[in-house]
C-alpha cells in the first residue's frame, strides 16, 4: 500500500499524466533560494553553467559566482579554500568530471580537511544517452562513498532535488549530490517530507522490498503496482541518502520482507546496492538481487533504449523481484 502520509503525487502510477522535469532543474531552483537566504553560498562551475543549471544564480549573484574554466581539479581545491574561509561553495560539473577528474582533490583538499563543500555530479547514469559512455557517470557513487566524511545523496525527482540542495547546507561538511540529464517523472510533491539520512517507505508490502534511489525509483514503484495484480506484495524504499546510510530502516525492512532488490542507474559494483548489502550482510542477511549496470561501459542511444539494453527497466525489476522471492 502506498504510504499516504508522504503526500506523493496522486497520479504516481500514471506515466502519462506525471509532469517530467530534469532533476538538475531542481538544483537551479534550490541555488536561487539559497542565494537569497544565505550570503555565504557561492557557486563554481567548470564551463558547464547552463547544463548544470547555475546560470540563473550567475545572473542574480554575479559576485558569488566563479567560472573556473575546464579545470575541475583547480575548482575542487578552490572550493576547499573558500569553505575553510567560511563560505559554502557549490561545485557544479558532470559526474564524470566531478568527482571523476578531481578525486584526489576531493579526498585531501575537501574531505580530509572536513571542508564544507557541496559538489554536484550532474548528467550521472546511463540515461545521459547519446553522448555515450565517456559522459555516463556509472562509478561516481562508488568512488565518493568510500571517502570518509562525505555525505552522498541521490534525489529521485526535481522536487526532491530542490529539497536536497537546501538541506545540504544544514549538513556540516562535504555533500555529494547526484543528478540526471533527462526529464524524468515528478512523483513526489512539495509536501513530501525529506531529511538527509532518513530513508522513506514509499510503499508498504510484506513479500519483498525494493530499495532504490534516483529517478529509477519510479520504475520500482510501477513494478510494485503491477505485481499487486499478481498477488505479490512489494515494499518500496526511497534510499536517497547512501551515506550516512539509514541502517536501522534497512534492517527493519529486511526483517519484515525477507528479500531485497536494489535499483540504481550506476555500476552494481560499489553503488547504492553494495552499500545496502554491506549493511544487511553484517546485520541481517537475506537474499538480494541487484538491478544496475553489470561491470560494463555504456554507449550512445536514447535513455529508454539504454535502460532496456542494460536491464534497468520496470520489467527487469519485476524479474529481479520474482527471482529473489524464489530464493527466500
Amino acid at each position, binding site marked *: 500500500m502506498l504510504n499516504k502520509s508522504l503526500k506523493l503525487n496522486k497520479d504516481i502510477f500514471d506515466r502519462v499524466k506525471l509532469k517530467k522535469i530534469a532533476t538538475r532543474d531542481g538544483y537551479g531552483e534550490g541555488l536561487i533560494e539559497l542565494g537569497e537566504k544565505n550570503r555565504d553560498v557561492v557557486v563554481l562551475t567548470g564551463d558547464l553553467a547552463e547544463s548544470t543549471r547555475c546560470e540563473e544564480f550567475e545572473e542574480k549573484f554575479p559576485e558569488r559566482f566563479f567560472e573556473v574554466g575546464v579545470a575541475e581539479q583547480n575548482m575542487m581545491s*578552490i572550493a576547499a579554500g573558500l*569553505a*575553510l574561509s567560511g563560505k559554502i561553495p557549490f561545485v557544479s560539473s558532470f559526474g564524470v568530471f566531478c568527482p571523476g577528474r578531481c578525486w584526489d*582533490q576531493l*579526498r585531501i*583538499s575537501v574531505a580530509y580537511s572536513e*571542508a564544507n563543500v557541496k559538489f554536484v555530479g550532474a548528467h550521472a547514469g546511463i540515461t545521459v544517452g547519446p553522448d555515450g559512455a565517456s559522459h555516463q557517470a556509472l562509478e561516481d557513487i562508488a568512488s565518493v562513498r568510500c571517502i570518509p566524511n562525505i555525505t552522498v545523496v541521490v534525489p529521485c525527482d526535481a522536487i526532491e532535488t530542490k529539497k536536497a540542495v537546501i538541506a545540504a547546507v544544514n549538513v556540516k561538511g562535504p555533500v555529494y549530490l547526484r543528478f540526471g540529464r533527462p526529464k524524468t517523472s515528478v512523483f513526489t510533491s512539495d509536501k513530501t517530507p525529506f531529511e538527509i539520512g532518513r530513508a522513506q517507505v514509499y510503499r508498504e508490502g510484506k513479500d519483498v522490498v525494493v530499495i532504490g534511489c534516483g529517478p529509477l525509483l519510479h520504475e520500482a514503484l510501477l513494478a510494485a503496482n503491477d505485481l499487486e495484480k499478481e498477488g505479490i506484495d512489494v515494499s518500496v524504499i526511497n534510499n536517497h541518502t547512501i551515506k550516512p546510510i539509514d541502517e536501522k530502516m534497512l534492517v527493519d525492512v529486511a526483517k519484515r520482507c525477507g528479500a531485497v532488490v536494489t535499483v540504481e542507474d550506476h555500476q552494481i559494483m560499489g553503488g547504492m546496492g553494495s552499500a545496502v548489502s554491506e549493511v544487511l550482510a553484517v546485520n541481517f542477511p537475506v537474499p538480494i538481487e541487484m538491478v544496475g549496470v553489470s561491470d560494463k561501459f555504456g554507449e550512445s542511444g536514447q535513455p529508454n533504449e539504454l535502460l532496456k539494453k542494460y536491464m534497468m527497466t520496470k520489467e527487469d525489476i519485476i524479474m529481479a523481484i520474482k527471482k529473489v522471492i524464489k530464493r527466500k
Partner: protein
Amino acid sequence: MDNFEELKKLANIIRQDIIKMLCEAGSGHSAGSLGMADVFTVLYFNILEKRPKDPWWEDRDRLILSNGHICPVLYAALAHAGYFPVEELKTLRKMGSRLQGHPKARELPGVENSSGPLGQGVSQAIGFALAAKLDKKKHQIYVISSDGEQDEGQTWEAVMFAGKHKLDNLTMIMDRNNIQIDGFTEDVMPLEPLKEKYEAFNWYVIDIDGNNIEEVIDACNKAKAIYEKPVLILAHTIPGMGVDFMEFDPEWHGKVPDNKERKKALKELRTLKGKIEFD
C-alpha cells in the same frame, strides 16, 4: 623581529629542530625542510599578521603549504612562534600526534590546509583569497609551493585563474631548489624559463636568494605593494641548506640522517660549518 642577525640565529635553531624531529621520527623529508628554514623564519617572525594564542583570529594572514612534505619546517616555525609547545615537535609522525606526516587542516593551531598530494595548494590558496575579497578583508594569503609541483597540471590551472582574477592578495613563494625525487628538476621535467612563464600568465615575479633573510623580507614587503596582480617570489634555495653532505643532493629529498650523520649535521649547524666556536 627586525634584527637580521636574530632572524638568522632563529633560522639556524629551526634547522637544528628539523634535524632532531626527523631523526626522532625516523623518516621524513630533510632537504626541502632545511632549504626553506629562512623563508619560514621570515614569514613567522617578520611578515605574517598573526595571534598564536588566538590562532584562528579572522584577520590573520593565511599561510597555505602546498608541498606538504616539508611540514617539519612549518611545524618548527609554528612552535617557536608560540602556537604550541616546542616540546611537541618530537611527536612528529608518531601515533596520536597532531604533527601528522603531512599536514591536516586545523589539526594543529596555525595549520590552515591539508596537503601531501602535490599541486593542490595554490588552488586552495585561491579559495582563501577569493573569500577574503568577498568579505572585503585586508589580510594576505601566502602559499608555499615547490618546483617539483610545477610538473602538476593543476598548478597551471591555478596560476591561470589567479591571473584572470588579479588576485593581488595572493603571494606564492616557490622553493626553487632544483631537486625532486628522481633527480634534478631540469632532467626530470625542464621548467625554465619559470619567470617568463609566470609573467605570461599575468603574475608579477620577484627573483631572490631564498636563503638570504634580507632578500626574503624585502621581497615579501614588495609583494604587498603590488596591485592588480598575484605575486610569485621565486626563492632560489639550497636544498639541505646548512648541512654540507646534504646540500644540492636530490638523495636527501626524502631521507633522514642516521645517528652519525645526525651528530655531524647538528655540529655543522651549531658552528655554522665551523665558522663559530662549538659551545
